Structures are given as structure tokens and as C-alpha cells.
């Protein structure tokens, strides 16, 4: 927040501004021309100058060409591997570090599995598709599946050519259980930023966002729910931008009657409605299919084939691919 002193304004203009009580660039930007001229006793030209200077001090980076941006803002467009080369290729490198990535799906479709796996891959060095940072896992539905995580530790051995063999995955996964919306807001607005400044965390998982917001509100209280969703979503966006985090929100699905080939069909659509969907940058949807394939690890067993569908994403085509969940994690199949 810059005071008018650093805006490099003529003496008289600055005095007028201070007298009228404008001490920050933000307040100058948010007041109308009329207010500036009347209360600040400024001429039209001075008013414009003050505006421009205030805008410059808030938006320090200015406008840069994309060629420059690609170099200077490289961190912004990093991607986090999901831990399987096939799925990574499908997602063009994995999950983005900007905005909110949502993983929606019915129960048992593999949402938590995918998130757990990313809590490990995020700790890989950048050259291996990770972000070499820890993970924060916010549970709202069930207890954190620590046994499954332990199982995955064995399957994702941190074996790199560099001398990083004794990396301990468990040390940098922070787990939090939250039961209601108020505590979630408090956690995201106060405690999480504190943790992020102290520890190198590169992934925040909220499993699930729907659990809290579907239960905590009366059916008639949709306005407040929308507002709370906007606060939570806005804060997640802000943290992602500030700390270059991958933010993943798990969501449930509701069935909507849709028409396909002139037949009415039940179609699963991510829950929480438009208010939440507007906050989501990339929406992925998981579902189980009726097909099974033999388990690559235990040949006498079969595993269910699931699909991963891109519902919308700024950089991916709406498409789907198949994957399986085995003892060793989530894998894409052809």
C-alpha cells in the first residue's frame, strides 16, 4: 500500500490528497472522478495523473509481452505430475499450478487415490515432474487414509540418480481434519498462510469441498452458501497465485436428468452448482465403468476400469481416458 508520497506527484496535489484523507493508492483507485475532484480539489488533468500513478504503484509489473512472461513467470505455468506417464501425457504434464483443479466423481471412483498419489509426486524434484515441496491435506469427510498412504510410500520409492535416496515422504505431508465451514474458512484465511510462509508446501488438497457445503446449509440458505463458496474459492485462488501452489478440491456428484439420443438419462454432474463451478479453473471427473482388466500386480485378480474425463479446462480438450487403481497407485491404461 503506497502512500501518495511515493507516487511522485507535484507538491500541491499531494497536499490536497492528504488533506482529503487519501493515503493509499487503493483508496485513490476506488474513488470516483467526481470525489477526487471535489474533495481533493483537483483539476481534471491532476486527477488523471493521480489515477495513473496510483495504478502504476499497485500494478508494479505492468503489461509485458507473452514471450517475456513465459521467461519471467515460469513458475506460474508449472505443472505437477500425477505420478503416471500416461495420465500426465493426457493432462499435458499434469495438474496446473494456477487456479483450482477440481476432481469430481461418485464415491469410490478413485478421487482420494489420485490426491494421495499427488501428495507424493509433489515432493519429487522439478526434473521428475514434482515441485519439490510438501503437501497439505485437508480432510472433511472421512479420517485421513494413513494406511493407504503408508502402502503408497513403498510403491513410490524416491529413487533418483541424485543423492536424494533418503527422502522421507511422510515428513512433509500436513494433515488437517475439519468439520464445518467456519473452521475451513478460518484454516484457509489464517492458519494455512502461516504454514505456507514457514514451510515449502506446493500442494493443497481439500477432500472434499462438497462434504462441508452440502451439509451445513438449509435448502433456503443458498445465498449464504454461494457467498461462503466464493470466499473459500477466492482465498484458494489467492494462495495458489501467491505461493505457486497446486490446489486440488475434491467434489461429489449429483445426478441430473439429461437427454442423450432423445432418451432421458441420469447424468452425474459435479455438485455445488454454478456458484462453485465459476471458481473452478479445471474440472476433472472420474467414474467407474463396468469393464474389468486383470491386475498387473496380482494376475489372479481383476480391477475395475475407470475413466478420467476433462469437463472443462483452459488448456485441455474435453476428452477422456481410462485408468485403473491398483495396490501401487493410479495408472493410465490404453
Amino acid at each position, binding site marked *: 500500500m503506497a502512500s501518495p508520497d511515493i507516487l511522485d506527484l507535484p507538491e500541491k496535489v499531494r497536499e490536497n490528497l492528504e488533506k482529503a484523507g487519501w493515503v493509499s493508492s487503493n483508496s485513490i483507485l476506488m474513488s*470516483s*472522478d467526481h470525489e477526487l475532484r471535489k474533495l481533493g480539489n483537483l483539476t481534471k488533468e491532476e486527477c488523471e495523473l493521480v489515477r495513473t500513478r*496510483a495504478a502504476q504503484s499497485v500494478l508494479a509489473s505492468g503489461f509485458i509481452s507473452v514471450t517475456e512472461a513465459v521467461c519471467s513467470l515460469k513458475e506460474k505455468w508449472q505443472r505437477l505430475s500425477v505420478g503416471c506417464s500416461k495420465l500426465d501425457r493426457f493432462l499435458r504434464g499434469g495438474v496446473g499450478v494456477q487456479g483450482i483443479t477440481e476432481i469430481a466423481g461418485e464415491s469410490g471412483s478413485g478421487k482420494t487415490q489420485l490426491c494421495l498419489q499427488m501428495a507424493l509426486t509433489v515432493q519429487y524434484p522439478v526434473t521428475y515432474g514434482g515441485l519439490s515441496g510438501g503437501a497439505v491435506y485437508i480432510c472433511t469427510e472421512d479420517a485421513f487414509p494413513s494406511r493407504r498412504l503408508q502402502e503408497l510410500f513403498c510403491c513410490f520409492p524416491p529413487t533418483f540418480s541424485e543423492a536424494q535416496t533418503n527422502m522421507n515422504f511422510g515428513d512433509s505431508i500436513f494433515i488437517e481434519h475439519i468439520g464445518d465451514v467456519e473452521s475451513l474458512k478460518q484454516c484457509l484465511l489464517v492458519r494455512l498462510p502461516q504454514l505456507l510462509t514457514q514451510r515449502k508446501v506446493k500442494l493443497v488438497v481439500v477432500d472434499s469441498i462438497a462434504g462441508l457445503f452440502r451439509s451445513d446449509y438449509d435448502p433456503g440458505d443458498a*445465498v449464504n*452458501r454461494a457467498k461462503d463458496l466464493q470466499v473459500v474459492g477466492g482465498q484458494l485462488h489467492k494462495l495458489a497465485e501467491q505461493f505457486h501452489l497446486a490446489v486440488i478440491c475434491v467434489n461429489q456428484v449429483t445426478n441430473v436428468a439429461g437427454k442423450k439420443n432423445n432418451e432421458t438419462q441420469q447424468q452425474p454432474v459435479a455438485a455445488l452448482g454454478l456458484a462453485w463451478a465459476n471458481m473452478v479453473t479445471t474440472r476433472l471427473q472420474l467414474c467407474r465403468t463396468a469393464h474389468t482388466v486383470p491386475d498387473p500386480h496380482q494376475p489372479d485378480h481383476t480391477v475395475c476400469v475407470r475413466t478420467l474425463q476433462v*469437463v472443462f479446462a483452459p488448456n485441455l*480438450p474435453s476428452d477422456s481416458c481410462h485408468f485403473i487403481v491398483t495396490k501401487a497407485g493410479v495408472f493410465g491404461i490404453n
Partner: protein
Amino acid sequence: MLRSVASLPLPGSVQARLRNQGFVYCEDLCSEKGYDSEGEKVMKQLGIDERLASLTYVPPTKSALDVWHDECLSPRIVTFSKAVDDMLDGGIAVGEITELCGAPGSGKTQISLQMCVDVQIPRSFGGLSGEALFIDTESGFTPDRLKEIAEACVDHCQLVALHQNEQDMGQQIEKFTVDTIMQGLYYTATHDYVELVAAIYSIKEFLQQKRQVRLVVVDSVAFPFRSGILNSLQRTRALCDIMQELKMVAMRYNVAVLVTNQLTTKVGPANESRLVPALGDSFGHYSSQRLMLGCLQRECYAAVLFKSVRRKQSSAKFQKEASSMKQADLRVMVKRAFKSVCTSTIVVFPNPLCPIPSTLSAVKTPEDTEEDL
């Protein structure tokens, strides 16, 4: 006609002195040949000799015919979707605000990126040879996607140049590459509404340096204001301020302004809910063209012209797909470029106040009842 001195915006004391000395009309002070010697003396005394010229200045007039000619000649930025272009009279107009609204995943960011590339198409190909400015508030911008669209566009232009075999085209196509497109798009990311306001107030100065810029994109204008902590009164005021500024920028610098907006559910008096553009009713006044986008099914999108100063309400289908059919791998090329396949499916909805076709509400669920304030 003689103009009375009393009609000049001069202080009363000055006017009284002029009257006392017998100057009743402006023409007494200065004749067509120049200043009257006596009048000149008086004006010098009163210190208004230089201002009189500006005081009596009459702005040039323009007939409706002239305006119409200008409008016909004003360049358009093509969307590369025939149906959408037809709907918009050949593309997005410069000097105006065009608003794209739609549910998540309806292609708002895709069209925005496409326009940023299209505005840079060289003149000989019917483009504007311009540059573009992109203000990203939703973190929806990815250089990878821009590169893809740029590649498709360059390929397309190369193909055209090959067939037309004109010298102009051949020269200009060499300077039209993915690199120059990336160089010709200016980018900034804003993280809250104050930064967005700051970015919009910085446009003017930026455009004074970069005269080539012909398109300003704000994607999206809704996001920072809806997730912010402003009350509805402050929000409306801030929005009016920035839209006014954008309108001014569009007109003064003759650039096209493209803003994207989200949708919200509005509950009607009979408790029925429908999807409307977000940010309230007053926001709708600022855009000259309002286009509603929706996803009909996979890779088939629809656009409804919601508001236009020129056209009646109509709708079109467009498709995001590959620009060339040579590549075998369909999966990679699905989203490569917008291209129209159904050029003849411009459906004009009969009732101008018709609700949006239900198929457009791609993500609407029964839980949608929130009302925008």
C-alpha cells in the same frame, strides 16, 4: 448569425466591461479578417484574447451518413467461426465493448485467446496487423494453449498464401510466426479487484506507447468482483467506473474491448430460476454486444446474441476443432482452433426475451438457487 457576448462562458465582471465598451456580439470583437484593432486592445486588457478562439470554437459535425460509412469501413476482428462472424457482422468491432458470458467450460477463454491471435493476422489476409492486451484475472491463461492456437492460425494463413500466390501475402506471412504472435500479445495477471481496477486505469498510458494494440481482453471481469469482499453498492460503483474507462479507451484509441462474464442463477417472482449474466442488471448497459456462450455437447458450442445495437437476437453453433485434417491423432487436435462446421444453422429465436435454451446451461444442477445480489 451574430453570437452575443453574453453567451460566452466569461466571468460577469468581464462581460459587464465588454458591454460597457459597446461590444455586444463576438463579431464586434473579431471580424473574419482578423481581430478588430479596438477589440484586440480590449481583449488584451481583459486577458481573453487567446481564449476567445477556443470559446467560439464550434465542433465539426458529422452526418449520420458519414457515421454509417465509418461504421461500414471499421475493421472487424474475425473469430474464424463463420456462424459467429455472420452473427456479429463479420467479427468483433473495434471501438466497442463486446461481452462474452457463459457457464464454466463454455469457451469464453478459448474465444478470448483466439481473438488475441486473430487480431494479429496481417493486413493482406484481411486482418488488422495489430497487437493485443490480455488482462487475466481467473488464471485461465496458459502460453501452451496460445501457442497451439497461434500455430493453427499461422498454418492456415500459410495455406491461404500458397493458394493465392500474391506477393504481398508472401512477404507478410514471413513476418507472421508463432514467435511474433507471442511477442505481440501483452499480458498481465491481477489477483484482486484493486489490481484489476489499476490495470484498467493503466491501459490508457500503455496504449499511448503501443499504438499497434487493437484489442483489449479482460478475462474475466466478474471473478475478482464476485469473490471480493465488496458490498453490492461499492461493487456496482467500481464496475461502472471501470466499464466507463474501458468504453472511453475503446472509443478514443479505436480498439476493440472484449470482456468475459460469468453466469448466475436468478430466482424469478414465481420461484422459477433461470441463468442470467452475473454482476447485476446495470452491467449490461455498458457492452454494445452481449454474446452468451454455452456448450451443447462435446466440442460443439453455441452462441446466442443477447444484446446488440445492430442485429436482432440470433444464435449460432460453432466448434472447437482442428484446423487441418492431416493429423491422424484426433485427440491432440480436437481443441486446436475454432472452426465452423454448421454455417447454415443460425437459428433466430422468435421471442426476443426468450429464455436461454436449456441445453446451454451445461453445469446447472438442482442445487442452483443462489441469487446474485
